[in-house]
């Protein structure tokens, strides 16, 4: 294996562990050392659990020594987005209102990571309650893009993507409500997969918008994403929206795709997700990737999804409506921040609630709660929320019609490369436009993957290639994503992340 364990894929690390060439303690320590060296400038983590991770690694090494690994990934460390409940570890969702909260239970996906033997390195930074596309809405400060520390790492899962992109972890979990796994993947040159709605349990995921949220893998390779997906996915009786269907064949599909043959695969280019509003360099890399798929035998056609024009508006009504209801539970009574209003003697529970929510929520959360409250209020319900739900139907119909012609749909993942920190912070609409290409899949509950497509000519920053498939056909995302990855990596002569600048630290560059 590579001399630097932190740069290896999870699959390679798993193979090295199985061959007895390394130990989980060594891999986990290497990841923690890398974090100590670079995370002062990247700030991917909100909390690092060195002690816990090393103890889990030692237990993994014992299992391997006894010839009883719990899974193929037993001993490969993982980072977890801070929106997933981890028993005994802080879970803040990037919000002041949950500062210091340690959940008394694990999310099902975390239970599955533990059962499969993956040491948990820590909790990654995110936009507060996953509302944002840049991690700048984290109450604990932004994460920085490892490609350019003055730029955003995407969001809401910028911490998970940056941890993987800066070689602090081989694997991470993210969540994707409107693109929060895929868009950070695109702007950091990493892989992000949003599974079919219901294919991965949401039990223990602090809900942003229940009908849109989905947990998924954040990795450096498509194969690693498939491996992690198979660990955390599958039916969970604790999530009533969990799909009752076995989850298999994802890793096989990724490995098949990596051979670079797409003979007979029908690929549709979505006309509405390109052109105006998309950066030239992002479009150029997208077109080249499509050409590579054609060279690999895929049949490519253009398809039209006319209702996608209204997806952004529908999303920014449905999401705030659901979020405003979900966040009503932060009432300062049973857990979370409690703040007493100033200058009030013997304040009432309601006054305490108002003061606590004002102090505990950031601007973007307040904006969305109020938009949601507005959209659900009696005089406006039909005009806003009711219309948005109907548009959701139209978007699903567009997808259904498209998938009668093709096996997968493709587009750029995000319209632009990473922008500068602060550039769009007080311009909500400019921020929302980042999710233009990722939102339709959430509205329809479909799976989608983002793989790196190269560096844009204008700025030398990574762009993403998105592959969407019908519900429960996640394997197609892996097959086509892996094929694109293999063909591009061959063209580049190595992984895109090899071109990322070395991160300088006070002790020198690493």
């Amino acid at each position, binding site marked *: 294996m590579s001399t630097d364990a932190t740069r290896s894929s999870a699959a390679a690390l798993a193979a090295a562990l199985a061959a007895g060439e390394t130990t989980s303690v060594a891999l986990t320590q290497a990841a923690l050392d890398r974090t100590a060296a670079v995370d002062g400038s990247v700030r991917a983590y909100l909390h690092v659990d060195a002690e816990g991770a090393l103890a889990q690694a030692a237990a993994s090494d014992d299992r391997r020594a006894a010839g009883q690994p719990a899974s193929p990934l037993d001993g490969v460390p993982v980072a977890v987005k801070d929106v997933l409940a981890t028993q005994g570890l802080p879970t803040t969702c990037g919000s002041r209102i949950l500062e210091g*909260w*340690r959940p*008394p*239970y694990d999310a099902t996906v975390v239970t599955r990571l533990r059962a499969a033997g993956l040491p948990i390195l820590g909790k990654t930074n995110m936009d507060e309650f996953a509302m944002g596309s840049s991690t700048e809405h984290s109450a604990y400060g932004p994460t920085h893009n490892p490609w350019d520390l003055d730029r955003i790492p995407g969001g809401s899962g910028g911490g998970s993507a940056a941890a993987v992109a800066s070689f602090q972890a081989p694997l991470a979990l993210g969540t994707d409500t409107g693109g929060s796994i895929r868009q950070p993947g695109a702007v950091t040159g990493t892989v992000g997969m949003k599974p079919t*709605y*219901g294919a991965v349990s949401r039990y223990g995921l602090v809900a942003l918008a229940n*009908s*849109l949220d989905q947990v998924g893998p954040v990795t450096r390779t498509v194969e690693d994403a498939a491996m992690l997906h198979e660990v955390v996915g599958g039916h969970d*009786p604790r999530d*009533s*929206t969990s799909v009752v269907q076995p989850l298999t064949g994802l890793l096989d599909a990724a490995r098949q795709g990596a051979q670079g043959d797409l003979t007979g695969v029908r690929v549709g280019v979505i006309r509405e997700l390109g052109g105006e509003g998309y950066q030239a360099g992002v479009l150029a890399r997208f077109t080249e990737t499509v050409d590579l798929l054609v060279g690999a035998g895929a049949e490519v056609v253009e398809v039209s999804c006319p209702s996608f024009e*209204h997806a952004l*508006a529908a999303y*920014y*009504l449905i999401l705030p409506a659901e979020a*405003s209801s979900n966040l009503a539970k932060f*009432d*300062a*009574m*049973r*857990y*979370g*921040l*409690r703040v007493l209003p100033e200058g009030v003697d*013997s*304040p*009432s*529970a*309601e006054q305490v609630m*108002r003061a606590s*929510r*004002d102090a505990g929520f950031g*601007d973007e959360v*307040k*904006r969305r*709660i*109020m*938009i949601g*409250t*507005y959209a659900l*209020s009696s005089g*406006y319900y039909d*005009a*806003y929320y*009711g*219309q948005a*739900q*109907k*548009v*959701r*139907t*139209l978007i*699903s119909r567009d997808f259904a019609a498209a998938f009668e012609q093709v096996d997968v749909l493709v587009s750029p993942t995000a319209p632009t490369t990473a922008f500068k920190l602060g550039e769009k912070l*007080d311009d*909500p*609409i400019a921020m*929302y436009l980042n999710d233009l290409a990722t939102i339709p899949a959430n*509205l329809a*509950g479909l799976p989608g993957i983002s793989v790196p497509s190269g560096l844009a000519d204008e700025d030398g920053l990574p762009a993403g290639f998105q592959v969407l498939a019908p*519900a429960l056909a996640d394997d197609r995302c892996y097959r086509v994503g892996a094929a694109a990855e293999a063909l591009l990596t061959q063209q580049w002569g190595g992984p895109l992340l090899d071109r990322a600048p070395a991160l300088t630290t006070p002790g020198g560059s690493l």
Partner: protein
Amino acid sequence: MPDARITREEVRHLADLARIDLDDAELDHLAPQLSVILESVASIAGVAGDDVPPTSHPLPLTNVFRADVVEPGLTPEQALGGAPETEQQRFSVPRILGDEQ
């Protein structure tokens, strides 16, 4: 198309409904932003006709049952572990009577 403009007073009312204290500075900052957001989503009016059914959820939902057997839950200590204040193994809350509501 609904009138998407929203006044400062309406924002104050929304914050009140959402149980968030907003001071004047926050209202000055957030009210114009909310107007811009609402104007940008107002384009959705009239896009779908009466014949289009609404979708609330991407997959058909069915009720889920489990066997009627006792399963372990949180201990009182765990359930109270994150509480801002507890008393006699209960959540301790500010006074709930005497409100204007």
